[in-house]
C-alpha cells in the first residue's frame, strides 16, 4: 500500500479490504479445503467432502447462505402443518382454503377431538388461532420482501407408526412435540435473516410465541401427568424435575433444517430424505431435505 496519505476512497478501501479478506480467507480455507460449491442445495455434503475434519455426526451444511425467502418459506411449511393440526382437532376441518395458497396439497388424517379438560380444549382453540395468524403473517411478509409464499404442502396428520390423536393426552403429547420443533427451527434460522432486520425481529416474535405455546403445554402435561416423549436426543420431555426444555446453559435447543426434517419426515438419522411422515410429498420451497 502507498505510504503517501490520501483520503481513502470506497474503491481503495474495498480493494484493500478485499485483499485482506482474500489473504485471511486463503489461510483459513487452505487449512480446511473448504469447497466453494457443495452438491445441490439440500443434499448432504459429508464432512469429509468439506475437508472440515471428522465430525461425529454428518450435518447437512448449507453451501450458500439460504435466502430470507427460503428461510421464511421453510418456516411457513411448519406453520401450515401446525395450523391444520390444531384446526382439525378443534373443528374437524382444516385451514381455510383462502389461506392455503394457489396450488395447495391435500390434508389427510385430521380429526376432531372431544376434549375433556378445559385447559386442553382452550389451548387447542387458542393455538389454532395463533398458528392461522402465523400462516397469514408469513405469507404476507414473504410477499412484502418480494418473494412468493409457498402453497400448503400435502400433509398427513396421522402417519403410520405415530399414535393417533384421539384424546386430551394424545393431543397434548403431540402438540408439545410440534411446538418444540418449531421453536428450534426458528432459533436455527435466525442467523440467515440478518439482512432483513424487520424480518429477523418478526421471526424472534414468532419464536417467542411458539415457546410460550410449548411452556404452557409442558406445564399442562405435568399437571395432568401426561408423557410427551422426546422427539430426538436434544429434546427433554416435561416432568416435575424438567419443567423447562433447556440445556445446561439454560438454552432452548437449536435444530438445523436437516434435524427438523428428520423428525417431520419420520426419518431419524437419515440424510438426503426429501419426504415422508407428516409430509408425504415433502416440504414446499427450497429447503426440503434432511
Amino acid at each position, binding site marked *: 500500500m502507498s505510504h503517501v496519505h490520501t483520503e*481513502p*476512497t*470506497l474503491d481503495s*478501501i474495498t480493494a484493500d*479490504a478485499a485483499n*485482506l*479478506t482474500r489473504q*485471511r480467507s486463503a489461510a*483459513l480455507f487452505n487449512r480446511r479445503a473448504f469447497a466453494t460449491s457443495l452438491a445441490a442445495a439440500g443434499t448432504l455434503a459429508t*464432512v469429509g467432502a468439506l475437508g*472440515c475434519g471428522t*465430525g*461425529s455426526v*454428518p*450435518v447437512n*451444511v448449507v453451501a450458500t447462505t439460504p435466502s430470507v425467502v427460503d428461510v421464511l418459506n421453510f418456516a411457513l411449511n411448519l406453520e401450515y402443518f401446525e395450523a391444520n393440526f390444531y384446526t382439525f382437532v378443534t373443528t374437524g376441518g382444516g385451514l381455510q382454503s383462502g389461506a392455503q395458497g394457489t396450488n395447495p396439497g391435500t390434508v389427510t388424517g385430521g380429526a376432531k377431538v372431544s376434549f375433556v379438560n378445559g*385447559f386442553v380444549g*382452550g389451548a387447542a382453540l*387458542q393455538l389454532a*388461532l*395463533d398458528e392461522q*395468524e402465523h400462516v397469514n*403473517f408469513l405469507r404476507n411478509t414473504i410477499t412484502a420482501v418480494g418473494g412468493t409464499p409457498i402453497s400448503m404442502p400435502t400433509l398427513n396428520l396421522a402417519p403410520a407408526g405415530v399414535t393417533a390423536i384421539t384424546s386430551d393426552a394424545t393431543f397434548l403429547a403431540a402438540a408439545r412435540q410440534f411446538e418444540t420443533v418449531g*421453536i428450534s427451527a426458528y*432459533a436455527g434460522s*435466525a*442467523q440467515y435473516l*440478518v439482512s432483513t432486520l424487520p424480518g429477523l*425481529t418478526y421471526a*424472534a*416474535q*414468532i*419464536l*417467542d*410465541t*411458539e*415457546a*410460550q*405455546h*410449548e*411452556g*404452557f*403445554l*409442558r*406445564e*399442562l402435561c*405435568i*399437571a395432568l401427568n401426561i408423557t410427551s416423549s422426546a422427539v430426538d436426543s436434544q429434546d427433554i420431555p416435561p416432568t*416435575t*424435575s424438567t*419443567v*423447562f426444555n*433447556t440445556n*445446561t*446453559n*439454560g*438454552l*432452548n*435447543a*437449536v435444530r438445523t433444517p436437516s434435524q427438523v426434517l428428520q423428525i417431520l419426515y419420520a426419518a431419524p438419522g437419515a440424510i438426503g430424505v426429501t419426504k415422508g411422515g407428516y409430509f408425504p410429498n415433502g416440504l414446499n420451497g427450497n429447503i426440503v431435505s434432511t
Partner: protein
Amino acid sequence: MSKFPLQSLLCPTETVNQDQLEVERRMLNFEKTMSHLTRRGFLSAFAATAAVAAMADPQKARAQATTPAITDVLNFALNLEYLEANLYLNVSAGTTLSAADMGSGAVAATGLPGKLTLDAATLAVAQGLATDETHHVELLRSTIATLGGTPISQPLINYAANGAITTQAMFLATARQFTALGGSAYVGSAQFLVSNPTVLTAAAQILGAEGQHAGVLSFLCVNQNITSPAIDAQDVPPSPSNYFTVAAMNALSPSRNTSQVLGVAYGKSTATTTAPAAGSLMGGFFPNGVNGNIKST
C-alpha cells in the same frame, strides 16, 4: 473460558480455538458490513474506514452512531437476568446469586421476599426458573468477557418496588411480568446482534427459554386465578381467553426497545403506555438505574 462450544462458523462440525473463531467472526462480520453498506449505496469514506477498522478491532465495530455494541446489548440483558435470577433463587431456596455470579461491584438487593411457602407445582417451576436464569447470568457474563467486554456487576435492585412480595400469588404475578419484559427485550435487541451469528443464535436460544418460562407462568396464573397486571400497552396478561401474550393480529409476541424496557423496569410505564418519556435513568426495581451503557428511557 467461554461456556460456548467454540464451533467453527465455516465448518460447523469442527471446533476451533478462540483465535481461529475470532478470525472467522471478523471475516464474516466484515463481509456482512461491506455487503450491507454497499447495498445501501450510501457508503461514506468514514463508514468504510470504520468497517475496515472493525476487521482490526471488533470493539470498534460501531459504524453507525446509534447501533449499540454487542457487549452493550448483552450487558443490558444481563441487568434483567440479575433481576430474575435473584427473585427465583430467593423464593425457592432463600438464596441469591453467588458473589462470583453477581460480579465484584455488586450491590445487595433489597426487598427480597425470602423463601416462600409454595405449592409443589409452583415450587418446581420456581426451581426450574432459578436454574435457567442463573445459567443465563453465567453465560452472558462469560460471553461478554470472551468478546473483550466487561460484564456489569449486579446493580441495586428493589424487589418491593410494587409492594412486598409475600405470597405465592404475588410471586407468580411478578414473575410473569419479569418474564414478559425479558423476552421482549431479547426480541427487540436481536437486530443489534447480527454481526455475530454465534451470539445471535445464542440470544435466540435464550429467547426460547424465556418464552417457555412465560408459557408455564401463564398456566399457573390462569390455573390459580391470579391477576398479573399489564406492564404496558403491548402486554397481554394471561386470562382464560388469552393464555398467550400475543397481539390479536398476527399472533406476535411483543418487541420492546431499550427505552420501553426501562420504562417498565423503572416504574415509569403504566398499562396504557406505548412509549415512555425519554430521559429516565432510574426508578422502580432499579433505584439507581441499571448498569452498563444503555440505561436511559
